[in-house]
């Protein structure tokens, strides 16, 4: 846990000495649902719910008023997308679970988000770099999903795509400004990229659930997506004078419920009100 180079491939350790220290995944996994479409919807939803909640933590703490509002807007977009996807997942599952039940009454091992989105916010540069790596993936994935066989999913994706395109425009512009800005902003952006880059790989992993979703016309072939993502990312990072780090550290497991210790703490915060007052409305 002390050196930041990350030679191991097991994902059984956190990266270096940055704010992510302690990002050691648990080995637990449970709550796997047997319907591939439900599982796919949960993966899509949980990325958004968790990232949206992380961004909401910036509310009132943004570096400048306009950016505070921008981050809150993006957080609301993502939570709104998560809500639609969870609602659909509950309907397809057919066990009477609502979007609120899925958001507030599942434990960390039942969450299906990639580890990238659950990491603590770090400084503003880290929040922006994480957002950029996700947004570039998100736009491409939603473009594919807008043509999904399941009409409800296609509809949600088409609506979310408009929002995601703006998110990418926002985060890419900030990556350029920070990377190609002052000495300090460059150094912070590069450190963020060094720490976060390994986590981006999990966005492109495919398992049987993903392959089943692709076969059913409701998934995205991540192998096809990856080079297109690299093209977008490389261009912006080059303009930002940032360097992609080398190293084989490749954390994984979020899609099957293995998360860093950070998710549990975040969920404790996010879910406490709903669990203390089940069914409360306000």
């Amino acid at each position, binding site marked *: 846990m002390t050196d930041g180079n990350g030679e191991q491939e097991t994902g059984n350790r956190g990266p270096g000495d940055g704010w992510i220290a302690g990002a050691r995944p648990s080995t637990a996994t449970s709550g796997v649902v047997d319907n591939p479409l439900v599982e796919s919807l949960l993966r899509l939803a949980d990325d958004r719910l968790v990232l949206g909640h992380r961004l909401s933590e910036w509310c009132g703490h943004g570096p400048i008023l306009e950016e505070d*509002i921008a981050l809150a807007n993006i957080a609301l977009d993502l939570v709104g997308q998560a809500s639609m996807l969870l609602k659909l997942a509950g309907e397809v599952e057919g066990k009477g679970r609502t979007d609120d039940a899925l958001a507030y009454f599942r434990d960390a091992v039942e969450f299906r988000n990639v580890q990238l989105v659950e990491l603590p916010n770090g400084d503003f540069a880290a929040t922006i770099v994480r957002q950029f790596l996700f947004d570039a993936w998100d736009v491409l994935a939603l473009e594919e999903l807008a043509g999904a066989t399941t009409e409800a999913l296609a509809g949600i994706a088409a609506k979310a795509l408009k929002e995601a395109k703006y998110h990418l425009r926002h985060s890419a512009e900030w990556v350029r400004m920070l990377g190609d800005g002052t000495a300090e902003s460059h150094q912070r952006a590069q450190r963020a990229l060094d720490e976060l880059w390994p986590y981006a790989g999990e966005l492109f992993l495919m398992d049987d659930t993903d392959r089943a979703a692709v076969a059913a016309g409701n998934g995205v072939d991540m192998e096809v997506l990856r080079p297109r993502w690299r093209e977008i990312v490389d261009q912006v990072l080059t303009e930002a004078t940032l360097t992609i780090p080398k190293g084989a550290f490749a954390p994984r497991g979020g899609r099957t419920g293995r998360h860093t210790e950070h998710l549990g703490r975040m969920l404790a915060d996010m879910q406490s009100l709903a669990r203390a007052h089940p069914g409360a409305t306000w």
Partner: protein
Amino acid sequence: MTDDGTVSTAAPGSVPTETQWDLWEVFTQEGQGAPHEHAGSVHATTAEHAMQNARDVYARRGKIVSLWVVPTTAIVASAPGDAGPLFDPGNDKAYRHPQFYKVPRGVRGL
């Protein structure tokens, strides 16, 4: 800290040095053919940045179809002291105002 990373040397209690980004004025249009109306201002470093901040602050709610952002320094404003010479002469010549004239009944399309 100023934006080149140096620590401000301003003495306590003195007027702080300007560390804000440039100011941009924001104009929003609520429909095709409607005028762009002044909505407010945002701080930003570049035109693209100003456009994004304007969108986030002024255009996320409501039906905005178009945005203009203009550097505040590009706006030439009349001085308050000029209000008399600039605007008063019109006020005492009532016949210059459209309200002075009665529109005959039956006239349409005015």
